[in-house]
């Protein structure tokens, strides 16, 4: 049956394969390999963030008071920004995201992902559409994920952590979930007030935020990640516009 071998190889040769997605596979592998590590680290990060926010809100004196609250107490820019971020994530809003990733080790050079969507944490409705094959809808807390040409019912789970911008298989932190991104503001290392809003700087992140009506209207920042044993060095530039606060978010079931 050597003819059978030949025929199968001819068939394989005639079937176009396209370029192997090496960078995406390595990114997905990184994410999967580090999932358990990330979970453990995430708990530590949450604890750290809680402490950081506590210290910031506690008025350590690191930030110069710039405004006064209603009762006359001085507030720092960090306090104002954290308050705006908290107010923003507790109500419905629309979002638009542009995410530019550069990861030289995996030949990712300024790959841009754009997304738009809306989320309502109170009714647990939301959706995200993007220029990638991946999109998601959440209807009353029920998750539906679309990949390529079909939808999959993922069951109950809520809006948190599912409305991702870009491939969720990319390294942790590359995918931009609006509610997650807002938390950047709450643990920003140094916050200063500018003419247009706020500027913040952390160990790996620096950016600006605009506030309108007590809520975030635009968030722009750059993450510069240095090489670690888990991830190669990468740079991520994110611009988020947030609008439509308090408006009703209606999402239909895809199936």
């Amino acid at each position, binding site marked *: 049956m050597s*003819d059978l071998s030949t025929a199968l190889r001819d068939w394989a040769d005639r*079937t176009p394969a396209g370029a*192997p997605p090496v960078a995406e596979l390595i990114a997905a*592998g990184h994410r*999967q390999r580090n999932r358990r590590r990330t979970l453990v680290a995430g708990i530590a990060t949450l604890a750290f963030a809680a402490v950081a926010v506590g210290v910031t809100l506690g008025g350590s004196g690191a930030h110069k008071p710039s405004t006064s609250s209603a009762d006359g107490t001085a507030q720092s820019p960090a306090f104002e920004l954290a308050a705006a971020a908290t107010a923003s994530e507790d109500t419905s809003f629309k979002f638009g995201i542009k995410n530019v990733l550069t990861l030289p080790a995996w030949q990712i050079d300024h790959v841009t992902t754009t997304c738009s969507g809306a989320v309502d944490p109170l009714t647990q409705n939301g959706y995200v559409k993007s220029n990638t094959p991946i999109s998601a809808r959440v209807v009353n807390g029920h998750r539906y994920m679309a990949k390529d*040409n079909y939808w*999959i019912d993922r069951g109950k789970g809520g809006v948190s952590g599912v409305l991702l911008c870009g491939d969720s298989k990319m390294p942790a932190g590359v995918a931009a979930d609006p509610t997650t991104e807002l938390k950047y503001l709450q643990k920003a290392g140094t916050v200063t007030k500018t003419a247009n809003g706020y500027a913040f700087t952390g160990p790996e992140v620096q950016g600006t935020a605009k506030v309108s009506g007590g809520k975030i209207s635009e968030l722009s920042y750059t993450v510069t990640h240095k090489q670690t044993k888990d991830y190669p060095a990468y740079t991520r530039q994110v611009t988020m516009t947030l609008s439509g606060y308090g408006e009703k978010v209606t999402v239909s079931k895809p199936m």
Partner: protein
Amino acid sequence: MIPPNEPTDTSDAGYATFVATGWSRYLWTASVLTGDRQHGEELLQECLVKLYTRWRRVARNGDPHAYLRRMLVNGNVSRWRRWRREQPVAETPDRQDSRSMPMEPHDALQRAVLRLPRQQRAVIVLRYFEDLTERDAAAVLGCSVGALKSTHSRALAKLRAESVLLETYG
């Protein structure tokens, strides 16, 4: 063909080379195993991601090609079982393409291969495309050599049953 026991680099670069050189070959294998080009690509990607998480160990201690072949066969069975539990729909409101992308057989033999039951198709691919011995193919499929011979025999009988095949390949 890729040498089965080539020295393997345990770094990311070694993995990238492995994927780049084996991609078209294993994509075809996965596509025939699943009977669908798109399902085959998804299966291969799932397996390659898992392989990456174990790459250092597999590359250092074993044959990554054999490991990947086994993952493809087992993954195909898992996908089939998982697929029955999920609720896919034929069409999505905002997409136009159909869900699957069937393999395109060019002759009677290829059509006959795709019509074989899953296990028999796997045996044919492993024996005649991957050039595995009966023992190695049995190891990939997780069955005895005797069971593999039996499946192999039934698969060939089905292929030979096609009239065109009797003329062309008999």
